[in-house]
């Protein structure tokens, strides 16, 4: 038996998605961490200057470095991993940055197709498409698509679902 492997999906995420993920990292984790570190250091410098020698290295290691690492690494790794492909019969998506996931679901099982444009996504002209099925473990999300791609994918998945008349369960 020749070993087989899954090849990566054909299409990468939109390049603007990198900026979107960077902003997301800033809003969700890196921004709050850096602000907390800054506040701690300023307060300490103003009121407890004696604490600075141990507080500065501590905040650097616990807050600043993880925040910067996440901010720099996550969007790049995500951009390398995120990809999608829509064939006549199935949708195939790769996602994640540390834990990666490759999911393939047949279009015949589609129940609904959602196109989501969050406030930050909209600012960059991006959108995500989620296809739901009867099983929560078979729902596929493709994030970081250009708005036009997202509309086209949603239309194509929807058309494939309408062709299928049987019970999607």
């Amino acid at each position, binding site marked *: *038996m*020749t*070993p*087989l*492997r*899954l*090849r*990566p*999906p054909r299409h*990468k995420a939109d390049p603007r998605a990198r900026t979107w993920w960077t902003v997301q990292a800033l809003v969700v984790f890196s921004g709050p961490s850096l602000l907390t570190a800054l506040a701690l250091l300023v307060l300490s410098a103003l009121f407890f200057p004696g604490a600075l020698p141990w507080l500065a290295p501590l905040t650097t290691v616990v807050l600043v470095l993880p925040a910067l690492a996440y901010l720099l690494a996550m969007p790049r790794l995500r*951009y*390398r*991993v*995120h*990809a999608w*492909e829509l*064939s006549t*019969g*199935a949708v*195939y998506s*790769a996602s*994640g940055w*540390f*834990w*990666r*996931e*490759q*999911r*393939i*679901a*047949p279009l015949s*099982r589609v129940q609904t197709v959602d196109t989501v444009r969050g406030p930050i996504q909209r600012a960059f002209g991006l959108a995500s498409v989620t296809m739901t*099925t*009867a*099983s*929560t*473990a*078979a729902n*596929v999300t493709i994030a970081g698509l250009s708005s036009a791609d997202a509309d086209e994918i949603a239309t194509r998945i929807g058309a494939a679902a309408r062709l299928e008349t049987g019970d999607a*369960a």
Partner: protein
Amino acid sequence: MTWQRLSARTAVVRATWLLPPLGSALLAALASGGNLDARCWILVGSTGLTFAVITLSGLLRLRTTRYRLTADALETRVRLLGSRTRTVPLTRIRYADLTAGPVHRLLGLEVLRVGTAGAGDLVLDALPREEARRLRERLAAQSDGDRTVLSAMNLRWLRYAPLTFWVFGGVGIVVGSAFRLLDQLGLEPWRIPVVARVFTDYGPGALWLAIPLTVLGVAVIGGIGATAVYLENWWRFRLTRSDPETLRVTRGLFTTRSVSMERRLLRGAELAEPLLLRAGGGASVRAVAGGLGDAEEARARSRVLPPAPRAEAVAVATALLGTSPEVALLPHPRAARRRRTTRGLLWAVLPFTVAFLVLAALFGPGWLHGAWAWCAASSAATWWLARDAHRSLGHAIAGPHLMIRSGTFSRDTVALDRSGILAWTLSDSPFSRRAGLASLTAAVAAGRHGYRIPDMAADEAAGFADDAAPGILREFLVPGVTFATSGNPTPHPAPLHPS
């Protein structure tokens, strides 16, 4: 059928929730010799007010709710100011369950719960028993007559009851509620003279005696409690089948439950062997079935066999599946065992050893004994558990089923209908990639939805998925031993295979 009313006796059932607060107020009155403090009076007053409001609205609902069964639908109508009618087409009904609490049973009532494919359940609370059973029979198109009994309660199974979670968890819950009750009554348990004397005499002075005795006491009380819970849940348990449509579980001592499942929504079965139960040679069975309601309900309803001898569990699983779940499974690479050992060392051994060392640095070298003792004991446990976890791992294609086994604290063997697999997910992390491992998840529209084969050889995962449920990912497969690194322009080097 014309519009019918719910049973008027339901009003009595609705009023019984008043008993616990009334009881505790009475107890408080007795304990304090009739001198209730302000807090207690406020409690009594507010309870009374709430009771009046709830009872009134409940009575109104009871008087205004009607139901009827037409040729093709079950309808309910609530007419109060406006009117609200709900129609459930009979073809959309996934299950019709009957439950009856102790009070319901005293009054000869049963609650009919009808689950649909779409919106939430339709509940008729409550109907006279005969009427409820007649209605259920017509809704589920099944008769109580000629049913094959697949399994029935055997009192000797009670020996497995103490091997469940309830041994220690149950005692915790009981002690917690007892404390809360005492607190509500304004009593402080450590002020009770007997308790105080026992504590000062035996507590700190004789730890070597107190700790084992406490553990023993908890185990004994927990064992009794677990047996009681087992009895209440599984008394007169029967798993029956009416070919070819439905499976039905009936069980319960004070509260009776009756759960039906359609065989066409059955996607497999799961043999559950938690560590303790496995040591005692027992197992329980869950059905992997769709249309059992939301996640929490589905978990409770999918149980088709209580902790019982393993042979019985295998027999029940075989009856559900059509083939035996006991097949030879493919083992997982040794790297999977190393990952489990590393996890144990990292999350159990290391943190507490470091904590003991810090304590030793702060409070003196006495704590060093704690450090080495913990380090030795937890390392040994990690070694043993990792070995067991690795031995538990396995997967196989067995006829129409995909078999997956994993877990050590709770070893679960799942058999999934291969034709019911909707989608595949392949997942990994930098650590598992370096070990040449990946996890494969099969999606089904039943049970837990995602069933994972953890840490199988990365090179074999895609091919195995294609063999197990052909067609889904065939078009994305290419020959090659390198595990796919999606979107990565430089292919990952072939993982080392230590096995």
